[in-house]
């Protein structure tokens, strides 16, 4: 067995505004660092091949697949995960819209989709349906059939402009 994978390094990064420092194997993925070292288990692993999007986090405000990113690559960076979205009392408007539109069933894909959608809405508060589909088509969901996810993101976008009520997916 090669020794390289077990080489260790010190890392330090901010996750959801709190600094985490550790000495880790260089081969450890960011996803495993977030889940096992920072004990934030909201970020999920659906494939570990960079395809399903469940592990999506915001790395310096941009969506990143944490299963394909090494933790050491995020050294000194700012990471945001699903745990950062609500204030600890109420769901955020985006989360609430997912709830109202039934945009989740098992919830396993949801963290990744919420993070992709958050990045989209931060960059473009008035996305078209096409913008939403382009962004979120990189995430797989096996339960919902996607339409209610689109509706939820549309609702959150609409509400951020004016307090309008929910829209229907069909």
């Amino acid at each position, binding site marked *: 067995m090669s020794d390289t994978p077990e080489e260790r390094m010190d890392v330090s990064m901010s996750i959801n505004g709190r600094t985490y420092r550790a000495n880790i194997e260089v081969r450890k993925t960011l996803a495993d660092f977030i889940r096992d070292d920072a004990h934030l*288990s909201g*970020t999920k692993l659906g494939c570990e091949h960079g395809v399903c999007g469940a592990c999506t986090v915001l790395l310096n405000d941009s969506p990143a697949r944490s299963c394909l990113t090494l933790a050491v690559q995020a050294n000194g960076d700012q990471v945001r995960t699903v745990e950062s979205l609500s204030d600890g009392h109420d769901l955020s408007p985006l989360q609430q819209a997912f709830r109202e539109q039934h945009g989740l069933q098992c919830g396993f894909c*949801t963290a990744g989709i919420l993070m992709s959608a958050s990045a989209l809405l931060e960059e473009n508060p008035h996305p078209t349906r096409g913008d939403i589909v382009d962004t979120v088509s990189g995430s797989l969901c096996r339960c919902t059939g996607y339409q209610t996810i689109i509706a939820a993101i549309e609702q959150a976008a609409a509400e951020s402009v004016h307090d309008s009520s929910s829209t229907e997916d069909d």
Partner: protein
Amino acid sequence: MQTIKTHQHMTTPVIAARSVGSRVLRSEDPRLLSGRGEFIADIDLPGQLHVAFVRSPVAHARITHMDLSGVRDCEGVHLAWSGDDVLPFCEGIVGEFAVEGCNPTTMPLLARGEVVYVGEPIAVVVAESRYAAEDACELIDWEFEELPAVTDAHASLAVLNVANSQLPNNLGLKGGGSFGDVAGAFERADKVVEGRYYTGRVSASPMETRGVIAKYGWASKSVQVWSNTQMPHFLRYMLTAYLGFAEQDVEVITPDTGGGFGQKAHVYPEELILPLLSREVDCPVKWIEDRRENLMAAAHAHEQFIDIAYALDNDGRITGVRTHALGDGGAYHAPPWTMAVEPWCAVVMTPTGIYAAPTAEYTYTAVATNKTPVGAYRGVGYMAGTLARECLADDAARALGLSPFDFRRLNVVREFPWTNPQGIVYDEGSWLESIDVVEQMVDYPAFLQRQSELRKKGRYLGLGLSVFVESSGESTATSLEHGLGDVYHDTATVRLGPNGTANVAIGLSAQGQGLATTVAQMAADTLGINVEDVSVDTARSTAHAYGSGTLGSRGAVIASGAVARAAGVIREKVRAVAASMLEASPDDIELVDGQAMIKGVSSSSVSVADVATAIYFDIDSWPDDFEPSLEATQAYDTSRAMFSNGAHAIVVELDPETGFIRFENVYSVEDCGTVINPNIVEGQIRGGVVQGIGASAFEELAYDESGQLLTTTFLDYGLPTMDVVPPFVIHHIETPSKHSAAGVKGMGESGLIAAPAAVLNAVNDALSPFGVVLRDLPLTPEKVLAAMAGGVITTSAPTAEAVGEDRPK
């Protein structure tokens, strides 16, 4: 036809629907949306070690040498086992189906002597971390002699080679039945239409893979197993039956689960090995499947060929139907369902669908191949059966020059109860109405006009219809009605606290369907309290309510029935005490909106909360001879088989350049009796239909001739993504069952049951100018392009001779 005697647990109290029927937001959501769900990978036990499996890289081989000493010497490794090491504890899991003509298999926990499919576990390693365990797996020293691989069901049937030495003639199952004068119907037929349909081989692919954690305590001899299983109580029973753990000391815990769809409704070798490993290393052990393993080693699904024929009289009425199913079962019977799960279900469960066919005949054959065992995935057998039946209906309509709607209207059962030739009784349904409604929804004349206009411009639009019946709420009665003897029943425990709020425990584990919310609605209405005042535990532990498994569209029907019965017991106590407090007769008390009131006298009431408080703390308010426990456990099973029904119509457009199918719209009509929560029912429809779209157009577990699985990542195994999925229009019809709580019927599988037929019919409709009819799934761009050039690629094309007797005559 055998029917069951009625028992107490088959009747439910009549309730006033308040919360039932409304779009109650799910109680599960805040946790899941905020990253606070607790899935199996999120659970870490102090001192735990990690497990990884070595899996066979070849489809069929004899193991000639196995040495794990290199693995064991590896740093961080605590234990490594091969098949020989695990054998003394368990010989394997028997897969046997209780009908004549089944040859059982025993699936070893780790292969010994022979490996029979790519992905079969051959060794297991326990180490400090998952990284270390996976590293150590690389150091296995083993040699094998490759044997010929059987990768095709028809080759297997011809026994050119043997796939698994346990089945010397490759036959896992074979049988059939004939009802009425089928031969006569075919002899007298004015027309016979027939076809061979192929479903493809797919994976349920829940976003969360499987996972098991086991913790053995030597001092107490207790074993706790965490598994994201759909059948926690059955797993517990298997742990006692196969491993000899003492029943009272075994607990199975099901955490939040990221989808199951049937794939997690099995008992897998991994679930039995982990407790043994924990006992051996005296530490908790954890295994989380990776996606590659999931695609290779978790149950595969659906693969079968269906030969179907209709005898038609000169009015176009179906007078007989013959269905012959040949399932590619993979290398073993997947316990507990076995290879019967596809071909047997396909022909036995619904040979006639919605059609008033007076005679029917079927055969089912399942053969072994050197592929992953085929198990349950949403719509077992029903999907294939519906594909064949509904696509042949379109063939018949074309042959008769009728619209697909008219052919179905001509043949649909119009009077209930209806007994099909096999003796299956359908008590009620909106079979005709669902055809009419979906025709209006798609505005068929307008569609035809648009289709013909676009054709002139070289654009190919198609509309496909699929009308279905779904057996709902798998029960003892359903099992009997289909000739089996399985006994199902589930319990629920309901407790009313001193503040008048309820805790409910059900025996079914949930995989994301929203079961905690739907049964809370049922409990709330039975107790006359608000749904927010009900908290539900879905089979977190086998220490609580009993359940026969979340499968067969049972959840809503069975769990809500058990909850209604248990809540009904509490309700009677609340009524008795309220009557004593209001100086009335218990019979005159109703519980609605948080109040216990004298019927028709709303001024004369006391809150349910006050009654509950009084039962706990105020003995003076009790009637004579009162028993104050406000906790009840009751069982439920349906007294009769029940069936939901509906229709899907799907509009597609074919891209003549690329062969891609663009999905334009889905129109769904669903009749699952009383709808508890429309959001949840619609979610099941959308999710199921999209899985059906996946199975028809995108998904295929592909093997090469040597039995190598070519699709082991989501890059190769293509699930439908947001950009290919169409919007839905959904219509509900409610024809309540007389036999379930509130008239509820199950519907969790109908989307996947019926969508593939709608897709294939839509594609064939679009292809009609080219004079080509496709019958094999998935409809890959290659197949579509070839069809648009006037040719047919049948990936699966077996020769007629190879099937011989199994072709409809």
